[in-house]
């Protein structure tokens, strides 16, 4: 019987984009158990709601995370709009969809690059980020910022995109789609990449439900759940079906995200073709009262916003349940039985966004 040793993993590690700490109980290079430890960048953003005007809080909500920032701002605005019974205009809803999908494309390309770096394929990392730079240029041309968009407000959006600009965005994205397909071919068909991904970290469908997996982590195990099917913003008027794989290993999770890239480009193309004319915001008067739950789909999974308001200009409670917080227990289920060199791949395959997790 060999004695188990405990190896600390993180918070500073060359493959982790954000600080998460795992204590791995290891016997002879095989992991038996992992114990997580988070809390390095807890900022207490949920309590800021009590001192900031509810309309100004959008700026804080966007900065909960850097990668999924637009969808945080949009979910907060949707929650306040539902509590105050405000209906936004159609054009604002379509613009929000376009920016959400651009945010999803850039997030998945970032993840592909970091994932390739995780198993040592640096040139693939650089190729993915080269395409991502072009997407960030599109975002900067429409909103003014590369990562923090600053485009959502309670009652609509803050800036408009002209119809010519929308057409040119669609043409550019269809041109980039060819380069994305070249990279996807390397991820899915190359033999060296497959030997590191296939049958590593298998999560069965019942485990995915019982341990609370969300997003691509759950969809790669056969759970067909995607919050965009509920039809918030303008998604109800676009053709959309969740992408599901059955294998449940790291290769399946990569394939789900690669197919979602194509799906996002298609959703943007549909939204631009159906875009109505009109104004982009409505006037907001009064203060919110009541409570509500809002669930939207971030690139990493389902985010839940719970809002409780009591009629003053400060909200009483804001609770954000981010997707990585829900995906950490499935990670602990995947770890036992894998070898020590697979641990960075398994951690990266749930797409950890720790600044969201700890707000």
């Amino acid at each position, binding site marked *: 019987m060999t004695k188990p040793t405990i190896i600390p993993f993180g918070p500073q590690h060359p493959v982790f984009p954000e600080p998460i700490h795992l204590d791995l109980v290891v016997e002879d290079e095989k992991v038996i158990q992992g114990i997580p430890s988070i809390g390095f960048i807890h900022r207490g953003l949920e309590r800021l709601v009590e001192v900031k005007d509810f309309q100004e809080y959008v700026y804080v909500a966007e900065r909960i995370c850097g990668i999924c920032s637009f969808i945080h701002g949009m979910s907060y605005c949707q929650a306040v709009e539902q509590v105050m019974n405000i209906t936004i205009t159609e054009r604002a809803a379509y613009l929000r969809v376009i920016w959400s999908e651009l945010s999803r494309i850039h997030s998945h390309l970032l993840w592909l690059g970091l994932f390739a770096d995780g198993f040592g394929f640096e040139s693939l990392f650089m190729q993915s980020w080269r395409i991502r730079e072009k997407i960030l240029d599109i975002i900067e041309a429409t909103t003014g910022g590369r990562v923090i968009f600053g485009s959502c407000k309670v009652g609509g959006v803050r800036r408009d995109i002209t119809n010519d600009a929308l057409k040119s965005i669609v043409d550019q994205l269809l041109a980039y789609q060819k380069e994305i397909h070249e990279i996807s071919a390397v991820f899915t068909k190359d033999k060296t990449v497959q030997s590191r991904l296939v049958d590593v970290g298998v999560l069965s469908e019942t485990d995915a439900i019982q341990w609370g997996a969300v997003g691509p982590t759950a969809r790669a195990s056969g759970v067909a759940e995607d919050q965009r099917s509920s039809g918030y913003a303008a998604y109800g008027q676009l053709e959309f079906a969740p992408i599901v794989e059955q294998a449940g290993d790291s290769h399946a999770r990569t394939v789900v995200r690669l197919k979602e890239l194509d799906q996002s480009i298609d959703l943007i193309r549909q939204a631009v073709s159906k875009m109505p004319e009109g104004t982009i915001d409505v006037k907001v008067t009064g203060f919110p009262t009541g409570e509500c739950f809002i669930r939207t789909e971030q690139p990493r999974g389902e985010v839940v916003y719970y809002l409780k308001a009591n009629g003053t200009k400060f909200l009483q409670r804001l609770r954000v349940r981010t997707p990585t917080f*829900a995906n950490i227990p499935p990670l602990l289920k995947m770890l036992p039985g894998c070898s020590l060199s697979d641990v960075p791949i398994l951690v990266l395959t749930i797409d950890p966004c720790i600044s969201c997790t700890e707000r």
Partner: protein
Amino acid sequence: MSEDLNIDQLQEITRTKFDEGYRLVQIGCTTISTEQFEMNYSFNRVDQFINYQTKISKEVSIPSISNIYPNAFLYENEIHDLFGIQFPGLAIDFNGHFYKTAIPNPFRGDQK
């Protein structure tokens, strides 16, 4: 949208939801006043979303549901660190060291 529940019914309702294949979405807590907290337990299956709410006083401890849903330990540790509510029976108990905060239980409402 939210159903009220008694704290004694929590274990059997959770067990029923687990057997029917529901996923635990989140466990949340709100400070209502200086004497009361309000807990939210949310479950989801396909497109059905159910939320249970219960009000508890500040000194009560709630039995943990991590023996039924294994991923509940993360939510209960966070609530324990931020609000000071005890959850006896946690599967993995961090004993108050989950988040490193400057003041203990910052969301409890005792201090500003």
